[in-house]
């Protein structure tokens, strides 16, 4: 392992804030991005993820806080003096320039010699699979091709960091999947550090090394996809990443190993929760695939109101006695404990206490 991999992060944000009038768009973001990492900002629109990205790019000025790129404070530097590449949501290709000239532009701005420019442009266009389209104008290209030009243009000068602002938002599903794989390949092969912004959690989960979940101008949690999915730090993360059932519950007792809960009249258990006491009203969160259905074992009783065949699994909607609807995912060919389950049938739901998370009742 080299020194650069262990020591300085590529990018560091400390207490970055931004207000638009009275509205606090970004309230105190702290963040480190390691070399060659793929970090995604995930969050609903208006959560501050794009504003944070714009401040890193130098297109918005932070009201407070530090931004350090490769050891150099850049918060007060203009965009053109930062060593950052950016791919915009709608590509922002220069419409009057050919593919070749679009990609050559950042090299020209850096005073690179013509022969060197031609060589590097040809290389990067080959890398993104645009050979033969050098002379085309952007509007003569498909959306996917335009996106590749934007990518080539932002990579050709080897910036220390590549920012991508919802780059695949305008493309259809099939093309999006294909470009996701290509971006991942470029990230791996070219050893690029990427900061990616999306509101699509599936995209975030499949592409990222780590994900920062944004909500109301700050980061709720940063972690790997598995960490966010298995151990969400807040109810917002639990709800935003993946699918989750939220069941109102009351803590009956806390013992050494577990927490006894009253959920819709049934007695259930969860792992020991240190931040709650007996008598507290809470919300028990459990993933649909962590619930098991049975028609005999003790558990939460309810009635199947809908069964949806998904191919590799079946989704059951179970209405509990307090009226809460609960989604249950049963893998086809999994250890089903019952025969066929039909809407109208009475069932019980069970869970393993390790898979239940407790959040304060809102």
């Amino acid at each position: 392992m080299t020194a650069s991999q262990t020591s300085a992060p590529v990018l560091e944000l400390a207490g970055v804030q931004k207000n638009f009038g009275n509205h606090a768009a970004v309230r105190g973001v702290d963040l480190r991005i390691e070399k060659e990492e793929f970090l995604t900002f995930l969050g609903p629109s208006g959560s501050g993820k794009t504003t944070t990205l714009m401040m890193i790019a130098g297109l918005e000025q932070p009201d407070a806080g530090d931004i350090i790129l490769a050891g150099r404070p850049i918060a007060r530097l203009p965009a053109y003096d930062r060593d950052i590449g950016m791919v915009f949501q709608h590509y922002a290709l220069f419409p009057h320039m050919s593919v070749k000239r679009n990609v050559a532009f950042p090299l020209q701005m850096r005073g690179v010699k013509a022969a060197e420019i031609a060589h590097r442009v040809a290389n990067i266009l080959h890398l993104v699979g645009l050979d033969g389209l050098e002379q085309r104008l952007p509007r003569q290209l498909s959306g996917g091709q335009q996106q590749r030009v934007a990518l080539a243009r932002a990579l050709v000068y080897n910036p220390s960091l590549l920012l991508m602002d919802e780059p695949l938002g305008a493309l259809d599903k099939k093309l999006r999947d294909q470009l996701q794989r290509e971006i991942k390949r470029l990230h791996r092969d070219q050893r690029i550090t990427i900061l990616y912004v999306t509101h699509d959690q599936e995209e975030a989960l499949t592409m990222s090394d780590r994900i920062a979940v944004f909500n109301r101008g700050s980061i709720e949690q940063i972690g790997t996809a598995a960490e966010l999915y298995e151990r969400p730090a807040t109810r917002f993360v639990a709800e935003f990443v993946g699918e989750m059932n939220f069941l109102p519950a009351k803590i009956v007792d806390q013992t050494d190993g577990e927490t006894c809960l009253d959920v819709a009249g049934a007695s259930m258990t969860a792992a020991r929760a240190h931040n709650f006491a007996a008598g507290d009203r809470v919300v028990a969160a459990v993933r649909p695939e962590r619930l098991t259905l049975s028609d005999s074992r003790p558990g939460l009783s309810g009635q199947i109101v809908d069964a949806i065949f998904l191919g590799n699994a079946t989704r059951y909607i179970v209405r509990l006695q307090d009226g809460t609807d609960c989604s249950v995912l049963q893998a086809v060919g999994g250890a089903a404990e019952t025969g066929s389950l039909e809407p109208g049938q009475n069932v019980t739901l069970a869970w393993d206490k390790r898979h239940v998370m407790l959040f304060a009742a809102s």
Partner: protein
Amino acid sequence: MKSSGLSVWRSLRGAICLLVALYLIAPLTIVVIISFSGAPFLQFPPPSFSLRWYDNLFTDAAWGDALQVSLSILLPSACGATILGTAAAYAIVRGRVPGADFLYAVLMMPIIVPSIITAAALFGLYRLFDLNGTLTGLIIAHVVLTTPYVVATVAAALRTLDPRLEAAAATLGARPVASFRHVTLPLLAPAILSGFLFAAVACFDELIVSMFVSTARTRPISVQMWSNIRGDVDPTIAAIASLSFAFALLALLGSLFFTRRPEVDRSA
């Protein structure tokens, strides 16, 4: 039967359009024909044809001088209006100028306020600086009068220009001047050229302000036309009218040509 009713309506609509076009163009056509007249007075149809009125335009001292005055103020004032108008439009649309809308309205004033008021105002102002009757005075007056055309066309083009292009240029390492030169300016060029041509045509045509601030020695072509019409009318007026018509037509075609989107990147 519905379709035949539709086609009747269609041919009726075509006929109406043709009539309106004829109504607009006919007087111009008559002027052009008279300019080639062989007779020494305005008569239609002309009894014979000649080029003598075009010849007269360049040989007669009064017309020749007027043409020279017009041509020597045309380029400086159209260029001045183009530079100032483009800069103003950029500041209004892109700059963080307080009261940009108000500024835009102020810049549009010269084409909204009746010319005679502007003319009187300039005349009064010029007396303080001794500019009445000078070419400089005429040029300044025409810059004021034609800048709005440039501001309007360039501002309209800038409003449709995606600001993310300039943001992208900045992230790619372009300083503001380089970004303007390589991205903004080439994309605005058609609008700037149209603005320039409009300004040139407006400058050539302008009469009222020119009448106030010019003297017999610095009389532009529009004022010469006016005095010719009021005195002894001969077809020279038709000749110069035809020439200015041709000039305006060329300018219009030119601006259509420039605003057409290119299919290839010629500089690559």
